[in-house]
């Protein structure tokens, strides 16, 4: 048998790709000309005229070659691709703004000192956000201690016990994920701060954050535990394990990296939460390691305060803080992605 090479005749050929590229740039040029010669102006005009010209050219080409149905198909394809582009534009703009404005504020003293001896109008060489980083870490730590056990227990109830509350609880967890963060803040204010502690502290922030974190941890963990094959549980039981030992020694270890993902996604969810911290933590400017006493700073609070202060230095500080916060969230997010590619350990 002579050797036959595999081919994919349905893939666009070089000529097709070239034509696509020419159409793309042609439409771009046409939209620029249109904006130049008519009274239209602005980014919106460029974008809209580009989309319509591009769609029209593609449709006319397909119509002449294949007919009406395909013409419509190609026009719609252009619209859908441009709709997709519309979601990417804000992300790109946000990242670009945050990097271009934030990098100016990034300097060593940012990570070495707090704001207790600096005012918003001080030059950037004074003060830093060490207190905010420490505060954020402590508050997230507190929220973790509270919400991870509850979240995972909820997930275990949904996947292992499957009692008569399974449906209602799944529903309530969903409802809880929609609780506005400000409501969580008000709740801690009314239930803990006023009747018991009577002062703001980092731990109050942790309490509110854990309300927001529990649903994320619970739902992701449920998904992960659901992926563990039923055979494993049956095997554990068949070997004489009690349910408790089967879960503890077989199910949870098998789901380990997936559960890590759940925790990390939970952290990413709350790391940038601002509203409840404004109500509960007092947002001090001094480095404070005690979550149970005295106001505690945090990155979102610091950004908020600096932004509202309005002076040029303060706004630069706000952007630098945002850059730090977003980098932290991105690192968390990427590590969650990497872990989640192997949700179930072999």
């Amino acid at each position, binding site marked *: 048998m002579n050797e036959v090479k595999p081919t994919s005749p349905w893939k666009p050929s070089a000529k097709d790709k070239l034509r696509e590229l020419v159409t793309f740039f042609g439409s771009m040029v046409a939209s620029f000309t249109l904006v130049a010669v008519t009274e239209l102006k602005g980014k919106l005009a460029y974008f809209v005229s580009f989309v319509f010209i591009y769609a029209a050219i593609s449709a006319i080409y397909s119509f002449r070659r294949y007919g009406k149905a395909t013409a419509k198909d190609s026009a719609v394809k252009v619209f859908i691709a441009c*709709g997709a582009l519309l979601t990417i534009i804000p992300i790109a703009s946000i990242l670009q703004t945050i990097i271009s404005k934030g990098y100016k504020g990034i300097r060593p003293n940012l990570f070495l000192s707090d704001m207790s001896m600096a005012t918003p109008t001080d030059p950037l060489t004074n003060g830093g956000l060490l207190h905010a980083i420490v505060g954020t870490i402590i508050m997230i730590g507190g929220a973790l201690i509270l919400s991870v056990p509850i979240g995972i227990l909820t997930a275990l109830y949904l996947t292992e016990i499957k009692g008569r509350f399974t449906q209602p609880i799944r529903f309530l967890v969903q409802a809880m994920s929609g609780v506005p963060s400000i409501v969580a803040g008000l709740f801690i204010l009314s239930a803990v701060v006023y009747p018991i502690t009577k002062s703001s502290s980092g731990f109050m922030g942790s309490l509110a954050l854990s309300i927001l974190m529990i649903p994320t941890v619970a739902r992701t963990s449920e998904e992960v535990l659901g992926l563990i094959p039923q055979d494993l549980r049956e095997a554990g039981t068949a070997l004489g394990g009690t349910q408790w030992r089967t879960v503890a020694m077989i199910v949870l270890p098998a789901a380990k990296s997936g559960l890590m993902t759940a925790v990390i996604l939970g952290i990413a969810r709350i790391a940038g939460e601002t509203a409840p911290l404004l109500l509960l933590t007092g947002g001090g400017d001094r480095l404070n390691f005690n979550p149970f006493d005295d106001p505690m700073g945090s990155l979102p609070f610091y950004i908020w305060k600096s932004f509202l202060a309005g002076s040029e230095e303060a706004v630069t500080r706000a952007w630098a803080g945002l850059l730090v916060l977003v980098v932290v969230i991105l690192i968390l997010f990427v590590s969650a992605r990497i872990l989640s590619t192997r949700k179930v350990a072999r």
Partner: protein
Amino acid sequence: MTKAPAPREITTQPRRSDRIFRRIVTGGGLSSLGILGLITLFLGYRGYEIIASEGLSFITSSDWTVSYDENGNVTDSQFGLAAMLIGTILSAIVAVVVAVPVSVAMALYLNFYSPHALKKYLIAVIDMMAAFPSILFGIWGFLVLMPSAEYWGKLLNKYLGFIPIFEVNPYIFTRSPFIAGMVLAIMIIPIITSVSREVFSQTPLDRIQAAYALGATRWSMIKAVVIPYGKSGVIGGAMLGLGRAMGETVAVYTVLNIVFQINFKILLGAGGNVASLIILRFGEANLFEIKALMAAGLVLFGLTLVINAFAAVIVRRTGSSGR
């Protein structure tokens, strides 16, 4: 003929360790019920006094004033949320109206158009956007988006100004519900996109292939098979987004001008928002006004809870049956 023996009843008596285990897990599982219940209880307890004295006017009037005598005692107070509630709903609706078409386009693109290699990265980028802190959207919206959005608002007003909701008088476009809606739209696009993508991707493959085998183009296949299948899922996703948009605080606060007056003109620079009201008044509020803020929080909580519950039911129904 002998009678068939009655089936035996099988009972298992779990070991003590398992009984404890099951009890602990059930307790943990019920915590969400407990937390939601406690939120209602405490906000209701704190806000009860205000709601009782204001009655229905708490949600129908739009005055929010407190006056004190020189000793700091409250002499007169009026708390009405109407302007805030309407503002909240208005900007959330703007957000959903803007976000849904874009998200559906993105979801369709991801499932049916995007090159295989690109898809993975696009999904990661969208998920990442969902994790951006809301304060970032607020500040970016204020500094970067607002100038453009103001211009779009003026265009809308110029060409569609004859429609009452697009009227603007006085001629102020800054910090309008429309701009808040645009910021919220960008914030909820990831949620609606990921829900829609999920339901679209569950469209049975055999139906898709059947449509293609009948000579359907990609678009006519989507119209005939994917949209009917995913429609209610998209609606559920949109409602989830609506709930999120209503509860958002800091992002709205930075781009919205809060005015205690009912305003339906979305382009006019005067709006209301329950969550932002709480932040706005919290700093200077005394204990009495904070009770009113707690009551406002309770109303907001109820509102988002109802919308989320609807959304959850709709999304689940598509997922499980899909006819």
